[in-house]
């Protein structure tokens, strides 16, 4: 008779207790050394199988990062079936090949395909959110995303157009509607997430960004003028301008992403539970910039290290502030409708990022 002890620290096994507020921080236990083997095998097998293995590679990568993230005593799980992902990828690759060939052979077809892709983007976004949510689980309870496909066209097509034609003045409104849409569509088990933000919250990061952009432009102008004076050539000034422009642009992008990711979690509620995201723009800037340099210097071999490092930082700066017990979430088995087709879009990876 073999015995295996399962020691799970959490669980106030039924003892009656008053609702207490407790902060749970996820623990990330992945290591760059261990993940390197997984990443490298993923790469090799994907090459040897001409990309077929990439579906398994995706699942193993996700499972590694989910499985190594522990919250309140239990790990996250990624449940997607590689075969489902493979089917989706084959369709997506057929589309990409059609795109590549038409770009060379028929501009008309190419433009039509691009237009189709642009119009389908909100739908693709909803389907991939659905896929990811229903394949993510914690303590055996899966997440879900129930919003209709058509409902994404407002926040993810209409509002971006409005923000564009108003020279970004409506950007905060757009951002709020997008985050509200994403948040309110999600549920954990049968418990829906809710959104508590107001438009005012969304103006803060935007105004700070505009201010920083104006200040940056002034500094840039001064440095360029100074640089071309000192070096005595216009070319030196131009190079200084371009370098500073890109660095500044990159920094502003990161800043916006970090501020809005923190805001997203700050305004999220799951029943009575709250969340905390305390990412710092300067930390993320350092992480991204140093990762990029190290990856370039190691011709890509440091990618696993960079991914683990980022995951660890993100886990350290996230928390769920539980009001009462986290034991009461109930799986919702009956709501899997409408998930068909979600697998098909996974390969197009929308890269939607909530900062965790």
């Amino acid at each position, binding site marked *: *008779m*073999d*015995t*295996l*002890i*399962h*020691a*799970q620290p959490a*669980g106030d*096994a039924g003892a009656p207790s008053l609702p207490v507020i407790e902060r749970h921080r996820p623990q990330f*236990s992945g290591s760059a050394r*261990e*993940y390197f*083997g*997984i990443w*490298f*095998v*993923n790469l*090799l*097998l*994907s*090459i*040897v199988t*001409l*990309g077929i293995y990439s579906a*398994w*590679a*995706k699942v*193993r*990568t996700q*499972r*590694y990062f989910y*499985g*190594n993230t522990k919250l309140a*005593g*239990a*790990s996250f*799980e990624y449940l997607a079936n590689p075969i489902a992902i493979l089917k989706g*990828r084959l369709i997506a*690759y057929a589309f*990409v090949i059609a795109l*590549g*060939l038409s770009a*060379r*052979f028929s501009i008309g077809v190419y433009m039509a395909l691009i237009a189709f892709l642009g119009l389908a983007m909100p739908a693709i976004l909803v389907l991939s959110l659905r896929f990811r949510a229903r394949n993510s689980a*914690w*303590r*055996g*309870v899966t997440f879900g995303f129930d919003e209709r496909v058509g409902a994404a066209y407002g926040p993810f097509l209409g509002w971006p157009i409005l923000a564009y034609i108003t020279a970004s003045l409506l950007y905060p409104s757009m951002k709020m509607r997008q985050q509200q849409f994403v948040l309110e569509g999600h549920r954990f*088990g049968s418990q829906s997430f809710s959104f508590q933000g107001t438009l005012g919250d969304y103006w803060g990061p935007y105004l700070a960004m505009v201010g920083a952009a104006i200040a940056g432009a002034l500094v840039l102008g001064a440095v360029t003028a100074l640089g071309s004076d000192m070096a005595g050539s216009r070319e030196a000034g131009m190079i200084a301008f371009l370098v500073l422009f890109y660095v500044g642009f990159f920094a502003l992008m990161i800043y916006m992403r970090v501020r809005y990711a923190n805001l997203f979690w700050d305004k999220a509620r799951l029943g009575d539970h709250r969340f905390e995201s305390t990412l710092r723009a300067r930390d993320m800037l350092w992480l991204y910039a140093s990762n990029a340099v190290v*990856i370039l210097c190691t011709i*890509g071999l440091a*990618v696993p290290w960079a991914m683990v490092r980022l995951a660890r930082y993100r886990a350290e700066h996230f928390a769920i502030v539980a009001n009462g017990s*986290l*034991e*009461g*979430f*109930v799986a919702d*088995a009956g709501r899997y409708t409408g998930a068909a087709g979600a697998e098909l879009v996974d390969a197009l*990876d929308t890269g939607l990022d909530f900062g965790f």
Partner: protein
Amino acid sequence: MSSRTWPVRVWRDGDVLHVQRDGSDAVAWPLSEVSISPRLGRTPRMLRRAGYGQVECADSALLETWLPTQRESRVEAIADWLERRRTAIVGAAAVTVLMTVAFVKFGVPWIATRVAEHMPASVERHLTSQVVAMLEKVHFHPTAISTERQARLRARFADLVRGEPRADQMQVFFVASPSIGPNAFALPDGRIYITDQLVALADDDDELLSVLAHEAGHHVHRHGMRLAIESSSVLVATGLMFGDASGSSLAVAVPAALLNSGFSREHEREADAYAIGLLKRRGVSPAAFARMLRRLEQDQRNEPGGVVGYLSTHPPTPERIRAAEAAAAGH
């Protein structure tokens, strides 16, 4: 099912897994109804019984004896075996690199040649008309070369390529194009364009003829179509293989561009060899080709910038000149 957790003890007894909470009786789970998540690094394993719940536990050698790898997770079991062995990884990497190099160096050009040979002429014409429409809009101006000189060059060219494969499709066009500069190029349907700037640079008709012979080589060997196929297949293959390796499209785009210029250099060498052979067979000295290349090189040197070696779509000019002069010496 809920998110409620309990610490449990799990043990096996024959075909049954016993799951026991502290202070309660053990629950029996038939092994046949229990599934387990595949091994992955040191991540926890999940023992799942549909409708009853799941047990999260650290990985252990015991689990493999209790629940041997099932058919649907065999792929992951192989991956897991490999992931845990550094030497196997290094060996597999070496084999992969060799296979990839061989595929790119020999496989892709071979496939492109076969496919290009079976491409219908209508595709070549369609491809050409699109390129020409773009060039005419942006780069082409009416030529200033006299009709007599044009006719003389065309007649000499027709004599040169008479009887060559696909020669009947070749057609020479003269255009002025300050933006392109001294250059000549062949399009997939057999049109050969030569710029006034190149004509002005040449000293005699033999030199121009040698350039036209080079362009004829591109058409005979279907280089336009082959390059289109080669670069498309590299793009598709790298997309397939590295689509989600790093998430960086630059990491894919740069090697793809390098490979493309590699294919292009190979085509230029082939066209040079063809031109030299053709000129010799028709009694024109390949030295004319060497002279023309030297002039082009001189002209490029006067331009600011210059050609970056590795990214160049053409082989180094000194190498091409040497090849032409060696052929002329043996003439």
